[in-house]
């Protein structure tokens, strides 16, 4: 029984179900090959894309790729679908939808209006028949703004997460990277550290340390310690200064179970952190990370390709009005995204799908040393994502994460993108940089051979007189 198919010349192509059709239409990546889901040759892939283009968007509401009964993410997608907003696009096929997204009239307001009508599978489907320039152009038209102690995602801005990781969470080691980042204008999205341990005492110690730094220097930003959501709940219970609750999430109930979370736990954490009311401008207080391949690596993909699974994770994120959603695109390794080409495309797909669903998407533009990728590949993805209007990227000293053993964008990289495209940090943070004499009105760095006043008085002892 094959529901979907097309004929090219003398060759008939058949696709048994919607999940198979989506998988075969997906641009080549190693994770789908590993799962045995990828198209067997290039013509079969295009045949699937042609078939997909003729599919009405309504089909995705009628035929969930993972059954409604057995998966709470599917239930979330179906139950939260906005039928009223869907009226504007309900008559379209996937191919029409691509055309509709690209036309002049489809502007930021139009895209915001249909966001609650777009399901992850619709977004994934249309992305599979889009070129890189389409993914960039449409995403650049989306505008998703979030607020906590500053305003992230405004047009003309590119924010950064300052990621001061240290292999032993040593306070001086963390502080050194925080200082380096701040003096390079990094940290407006969040100062967010991956702790070396999940030990509650160590985690709350880091939370206090980051909070004290933010308070002492009156930095208009927020902190986050990227530990498990249940550890956050405990920390909040003990009165720790939690700005943002973090969690890694995936696109199926079983994959989330592998992360030790479900919607009920996330609901509980969201309630707890919202109640703290620590935001001054807004109360977007969740920070999620995702990445293609997480469902397959937990053997929880149910025959659904990794990019569609990834888009489904955004339905989970959307429920919690997060401040930041970060696709950690190249971290998982070459068995899921083999080389620079696959990583670049995946990063742009994730950013596009997230933005289309109305999420404040950023990207950890990254790779591991066993992937066929290098700094040139990251420069391409960085430039393209900055052009696409990504809300934020990572910032780390010299691209080298000495704790997680991978490479992501450096403080310098973010400055490159801002200089190239005339982008700024979040406005409140930009003001702070000027006030602290770190940068001038044009955004250029002004720190030369002396530390800025607020820092030099504090650091006399450790820096010493040269």
């Amino acid at each position: 029984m094959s529901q979907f198919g097309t004929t090219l010349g003398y060759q008939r192509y058949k696709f048994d179900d919607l999940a198979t059709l989506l998988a075969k239409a997906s641009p080549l990546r190693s994770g789908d090959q590993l799962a045995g889901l990828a198209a067997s040759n290039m013509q079969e892939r295009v045949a699937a894309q042609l078939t997909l283009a003729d599919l009405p968007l309504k089909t995705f509401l009628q035929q969930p790729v993972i059954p409604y009964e057995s998966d709470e993410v599917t239930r979330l997608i179906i139950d939260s679908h906005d039928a009223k907003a869907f009226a504007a696009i309900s008559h379209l096929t996937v191919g029409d939808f691509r055309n509709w997204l690209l036309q002049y009239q489809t502007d930021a307001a139009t895209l915001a209006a249909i966001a609650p009508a777009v399901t992850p599978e619709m977004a994934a489907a249309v992305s599979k028949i889009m070129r890189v320039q389409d993914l960039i152009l449409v995403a650049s038209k989306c505008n998703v703004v979030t607020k906590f102690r500053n305003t992230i995602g405004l047009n003309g801005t590119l924010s950064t997460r300052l990621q001061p990781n240290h292999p032993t969470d040593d306070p001086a080691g963390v502080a050194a990277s925080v200082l380096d980042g701040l003096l390079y204008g990094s940290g407006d999205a969040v100062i967010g550290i991956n702790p070396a341990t999940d030990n509650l005492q160590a985690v709350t110690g880091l939370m206090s340390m980051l909070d004290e730094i933010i308070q002492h220097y009156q930095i208009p930003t927020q902190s986050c310690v990227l530990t498990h959501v249940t550890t956050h709940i405990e920390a909040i219970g003990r009165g720790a200064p939690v700005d943002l609750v973090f969690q890694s999430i995936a696109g199926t109930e079983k994959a989330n179970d592998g992360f030790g979370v479900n919607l009920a736990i996330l609901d509980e954490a969201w309630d707890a952190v919202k109640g703290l009311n620590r935001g001054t401008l807004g109360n977007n207080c969740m920070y999620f990370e995702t990445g293609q391949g997480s469902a397959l690596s937990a053997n929880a993909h149910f025959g659904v390709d990794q990019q569609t699974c990834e888009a489904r994770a955004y339905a989970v994120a959307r429920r919690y009005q997060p401040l930041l959603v970060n696709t950690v695109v190249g971290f998982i390794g070459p068995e899921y995204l083999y080389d620079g080409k696959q990583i670049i495309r995946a990063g742009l797909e994730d950013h596009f799908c997230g933005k289309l669903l109305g999420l404040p998407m950023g990207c950890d533009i990254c790779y591991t040393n066993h992937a066929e990728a290098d700094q040139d590949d990251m420069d391409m993805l960085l430039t393209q994502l900055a052009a696409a209007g990504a809300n934020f990227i990572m910032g780390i000293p010299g691209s080298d994460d000495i704790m997680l053993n991978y490479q992501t964008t450096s403080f310098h990289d973010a400055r490159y993108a801002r200089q190239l495209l005339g982008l700024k940090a979040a406005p409140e943070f930009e003001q702070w940089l000027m006030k602290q004499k770190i940068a001038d009105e044009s955004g250029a760095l002004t720190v030369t051979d002396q530390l800025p006043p607020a820092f030099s008085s504090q650091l006399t002892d450790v820096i010493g007189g040269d």
Partner: protein
Amino acid sequence: MSDKPAIVQHNPWQKLRRYTDARIALGRVGDSLPTQAHLEFQLAHAKARDAVHLPLDYELLQQQLSVFRLPILTLESQASDRACYLQRPDLGRLLSEQSLKAVADFSEGSKQGYDIAIVITEGLSSLAIDKNASPLLAQLLPALAARQLSIAPLCMVKQGRVAVADAIGESLQAKLVLILVGERPGLSSPDSMGVYLTYQPQVGTADSKRNCLSNIREGGLSSEDATTRLLYLIDQALSRAYTGVDLKDETEVEQHRLGQNFLLPSSN
């Protein structure tokens, strides 16, 4: 080479490098990396990349291992080459048919089984095994012998993943299997070795049933400290008859603190 200060803006917080290996205070030209910092990064990446693709000299390893006076088996996974190994972790976990037979043939000869089997594979860094496997075993094996534990032949597996040890341990009827494996190379640590311990290994053992020591390398966990911690885990595993998340490493390891958070007044 060094960058001329007239062109490069150096950062006045270079002294903070004593607190971290992170690449802080790199200086800048405009907003960009100065030439020297840029090329230093390229060199570090080249080292890490070469570590991933450098084939391990198994003949040399065999010579190194021969000093331990144990039988040595040379085996291979089903990952036929490096590209296959990197893309198909499932194949790296399986022994080739020939290797399966070789292990089975050997265990035919010894019906009673062993306390411990030791497997060695290059994993993602041959450099890690080249530098760290023999020094670790030189300390570990005498300590195991002193405990009167029976040791299975040393098994070298070309292109193996951690779980490849399960089939070997099962076939050799080992109570506990250790696998020494080259870890994913970091930019500043291309030669880091990990050791995984699995009690009662069987094909299909969940990863949550293993214990792991990682970052064994010069400048990381020394082979002395690794041996101490491994012996603790081995003793515990054999007496409690399990490994995994329920077996916590409770050995005291000195945590050297580099300093306080200097960004705040010291009253904090």
